[in-house]
């Protein structure tokens, strides 16, 4: 169990809801859910959710910390915003799901080999390196995120797409050598580092 997770368990022994309100993006909205279920019914990947949003909100109130944070459900969010558009109580559900996912990951509780968890990290690493996404590297990193073997398989599977993109001038093999970048890379990274520090500090120092 990560140190931070340990710390949080100690701190919020009494209430997972309070922990979520304190540490999760838009977490203070969770209490406003009235269990109508419109979000759960509106999700395009709904059938793949072990626990749909409305149920997750109930689980949070019921203190089911492990079940929620180690769930793959939040990682199914495609950010289509259907839930937000329809929620009669105006909960920013998409963001809460993102927030829960991030928080789970930060505490090291997200399911192992959760593909979206991995991909979103790859994506982040990719973009923060140069300030702009390097689509080729991102693609390759993705294919090989589960190791060489599966990587080659996926790569082959994706060959037609790659070639298609190449032919239509929408993919640049030279990107492997660096590709697009912003000028002030170091500045960007400094900014991000600061932002991270502030966020972590907020979590640690939060008085529940």
């Amino acid at each position: 169990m990560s140190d931070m997770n340990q710390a949080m368990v100690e701190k919020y022994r009494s209430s997972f809801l309070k922990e979520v309100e304190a540490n999760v993006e838009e977490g203070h909205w969770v209490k406003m859910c009235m269990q109508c279920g419109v979000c759960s019914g509106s999700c395009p990947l709904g059938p793949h959710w072990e626990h749909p949003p409305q149920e997750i909100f109930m689980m949070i109130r019921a203190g089911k910390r492990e079940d929620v944070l180690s769930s793959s459900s939040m990682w199914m969010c495609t950010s289509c915003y259907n839930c937000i558009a329809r929620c009669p109580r105006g909960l920013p559900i998409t963001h809460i799901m993102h927030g829960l996912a991030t928080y789970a990951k930060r505490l090291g509780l997200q399911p192992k080999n959760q593909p979206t968890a991995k991909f979103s990290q790859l994506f982040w690493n990719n973009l923060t390196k140069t300030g702009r996404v390097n689509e080729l590297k991102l693609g390759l990193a993705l294919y090989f995120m589960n190791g060489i073997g599966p990587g080659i398989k996926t790569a082959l599977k994706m060959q037609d797409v790659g070639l298609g993109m190449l032919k239509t001038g929408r993919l640049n093999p030279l990107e492997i050598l660096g590709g697009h970048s912003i000028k002030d890379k170091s500045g960007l990274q400094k900014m991000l580092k600061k932002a991270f520090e502030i966020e972590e500090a907020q979590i640690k120092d939060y008085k529940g």
Partner: protein
Amino acid sequence: MSEVIATNQTILVVGGGISGLTAALEAAECGKQVILLEKSPSVGGRVSQLHKYFPKLCVPSCGLEIQYRRLKANKNVRLLTMAEVTQISGEAGNFTVSVKVAPRYVNENCTACGECEKAVSAEFDDEFNYGLKKRKGAYLVSNMAYPQRFVIDPRIAATDDGAKAKAACKYGAVDLEMAEQNLSLNVGAVVWATGWKPYDAARIQPYGYDRYDNVITNVEFERMLDPFGPTGGKIVRPSDGKTPQNIAFIQCAGSRDQNHLKHCSRICCMATLKQTTYVKEQLGDACKSTVYYIDIRAIDRIDDFHRKVKEDTNVTFVKSKVANITAGSDGNVLLNGVDTEGYNRYRNEHDLVVLATGMESTVPAGVFPAGININEHNFIELDGDSGIYGAGCSSDALDVNRAAQNATAAALRAIQVVTRVAGQEG
């Protein structure tokens, strides 16, 4: 009509629905002078368009008949139809009220014999039936219409039809020269009872009221049950006139929803429970009803009714706000959502969907003098001695029983104002 006598000991009641009628009659039967204004050609309001009342399943016209008889018998009440308030100024005990009276083109000579209706040909959407039916350009609002007097639709007044109507009337009742009138009334107190309107279902986009023929509203469903209504009293699908076998009722359609009406409309749960009994009565076991709800709000003694409906094996309750409706085969639709009691996804096919649309207040903006407090739900707040009192669904989302109760209270508040005035004037 311009010779309407009013003094600051007169009570003005605006709106001739069940609340306005109640307020006007109760005040008048306490010996007070009352002017009752109604925007449409007949009093009766929203309830006159209902098939039955919950929980007794009795017919609204039964109570209306009594109210109308009280109205006919009481000389203290002066009824003005087709009249709308445009402005109120002044203060408790001394209001000046501007009233716009639209021309009816039919005078008191009318015997309601119906010859004018026979004579004209043009047809228009029948407001009484929410446009589900056509009516002639010369018409009686309904069998229960009071005053029992025909109306000429302004759209035909200047046409041949208008002339035909005039020619057909042996009694000189059709008067095409009638023009809009503007009255200024001096009154002591005002009871505002303009009631509610169904929330515009087309704005609830996920339910596709504007896209699917077989998605209708609960008020339209009520009209279906009227033997003289659009379907001759039969429960049918608008798309093909077929008898439905599997009806969905969707609660909180526009209510308890910050995207629409923030408030709970109170009546919709009971209205739906009631409507499932229509289905049972007319179609028996041949038709199932499914109620999709968040909370069933059948409070106090009417919870008995709720439990009775629950015992009906043809009625199913699903705790779920339906996410959206998509097209199914041959006019059917698919309801998509999650039954939140234990997380069960559904994609249910129904051949008719009734939206329990919410109750939207019709309290207007820009009519009242300063100091009249209208809350964020657009209901009039009770404000001590303001002299203007909301009654019925101008004060809150109420059922008929509470509306009558509230209107009676509003009448007393108005009486207190004019009694005070009388005291001062001796």
